[in-house]
């Protein structure tokens, strides 16, 4: 019997593509023969916009990339400019950065966990993680004044010191976090239907993960122990004691599971940071008009999605000559086409969700 393949357009307006993202699927029955991802529907040209802004004015735009963990997006950019200008960030500011950065990571992983449950069909989990995410956002709002696009980092430090009421609130939240994670585990991870949908689906082998330059939980799900906070500690991450959760099979289930484990590790880091945080200034001595010397600098941080890098070129003027962002979601997405081949349509949703992309970052 002669059969023909047909084309199906998944997205750009589809709830499980986490935004405006399109995959052109060539299908043989229900099996994917070829998948072509089409990003770019949310492109705003942030890198180009940055060229017409002063160095400080770029910070609010970095928020709009990975708006699920905006603090970490700020961090990568300011780290690059600080490297370019040779600014030493004060101790306290480094600790504040770690605390808010890890809180941001928790917030991002909560979305990833809940939204993945929603993708697979466990919409209840979605409401649970979003309820808890609000507590994190409350904390970050207390610190920065915003709930999503914080713009809290500054070149040389942070915008404001942590308020008094923040410390008891964050301790209370951290006390409740393990129970929250247990709840997600009970609701989603332990669910047999969920496991049947995700175990042994969309397997990324460690070799392929490295070849495609994947990073973050997507790579660590395959068992590759690569976390920038451990392998190339930036800031003050070498002072904290924490584990890097690793998967074994590299399937969707592992990628999902280690995000919950990472939240538990974030708790450990924040607790240590809260214990160790010294008194002192939160801003280094930075001139009012930031004019880095001619040159370029590249800095990277471990964002919630993977290795987030920022490359800044200066021509000595108050505006950057060129800014480039290495967005982990976009690079993780590069493997999607290959990864989907041979799986059924429903698995494509499971695979896409497990990579945890955020379209603001993919399209930049």
């Amino acid at each position, binding site marked *: 019997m002669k059969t023909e393949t047909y084309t199906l357009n998944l997205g750009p307006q589809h709830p499980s593509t986490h935004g405006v993202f399109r995959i052109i699927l060539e299908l043989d029955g229900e099996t994917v023969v070829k998948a072509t991802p089409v990003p770019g529907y949310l492109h705003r040209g942030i890198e180009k916009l940055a060229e017409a802004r002063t160095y400080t004015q770029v910070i609010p735009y970095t928020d709009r990339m990975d708006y699920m963990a905006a603090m970490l997006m700020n961090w990568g950019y300011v780290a690059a400019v600080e490297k370019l200008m040779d600014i030493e960030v004060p101790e306290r500011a480094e600790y504040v950065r770690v605390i808010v950065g890890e809180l941001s990571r928790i917030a991002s992983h909560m979305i990833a966990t809940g939204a993945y449950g929603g993708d697979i069909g466990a919409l209840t989990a979605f409401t649970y993680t979003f309820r808890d995410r609000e507590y994190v956002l409350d904390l970050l709002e207390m610190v920065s004044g915003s709930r999503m*696009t914080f713009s809290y980092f500054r070149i040389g430090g942070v915008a404001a010191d942590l308020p008094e009421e923040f410390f008891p609130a964050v301790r209370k939240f951290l006390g409740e976090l393990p129970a929250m994670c247990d709840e997600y585990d009970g609701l989603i991870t332990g*669910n047999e239907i969920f496991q049947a949908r995700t175990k042994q689906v969309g397997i990324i082998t460690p070799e392929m993960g490295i070849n495609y330059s994947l990073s973050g939980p997507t790579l660590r799900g395959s068992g590759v122990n690569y976390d920038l906070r451990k392998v190339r500690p930036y800031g003050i991450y070498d002072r904290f004691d924490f584990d890097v959760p690793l998967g074994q099979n590299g399937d969707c289930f592992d990628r999902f599971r280690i995000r919950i484990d990472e939240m538990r590790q974030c708790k450990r880091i924040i607790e240590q940071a809260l214990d160790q945080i010294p008194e002192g200034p939160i801003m280094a001595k930075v001139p009012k008009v930031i004019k880095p010397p001619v040159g370029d600098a590249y800095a990277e941080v471990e964002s919630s999605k993977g290795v987030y890098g920022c490359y800044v070129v200066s021509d000595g003027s108050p505006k950057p000559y060129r800014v480039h962002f290495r967005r982990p979601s976009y690079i993780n997405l590069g493997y999607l086409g290959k990864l989907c081949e041979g799986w059924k349509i429903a698995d494509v949703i499971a695979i896409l969700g497990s990579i945890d992309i955020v379209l603001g970052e993919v399209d930049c």
Partner: protein
Amino acid sequence: MFGQGLIKGLQITWGRMFDKKQTVKYPFEKIEMFPRYHGRFELDVDKCIACGLCANACPNKVIQLEKEKVDKKQFLTKYIMRIEYCLFCGLCVEACNKDALKFSNIIDMNQYRRSWVRLTLVDRPAPEPTETPEEETPAKEAKSEAAAGQAPGKEG
């Protein structure tokens, strides 16, 4: 045993069913915002010296101000924020040396028309330069006018 995970999930949802409510009925009940909340802008015209630092700090050219020179001092006549382009990053508030521009914790800035969104914080004529004793009064009046003439429907 197969199905154990499902039962555990059901236990969690049943337990939560009798929990206290997490949400509030928004337009009728409102939650208190934190002091640092980035809400609607407020400008203290008495403190403002019309230096324009806020306008320069803005990444999106949201702030448009007009000033006139009255008796060797800059007098702010117009302060308009194109709030539809505002990123609420707070760089303008940070740039203000005189503590004149501040965030309030008013959250509802929604309007029915795009043209109403624009936030006019100051719109007043400059006082006459020669009449020094009466200089205060028109400025004060204009200030209250400006407060009344803010974007319509600001209460909700």
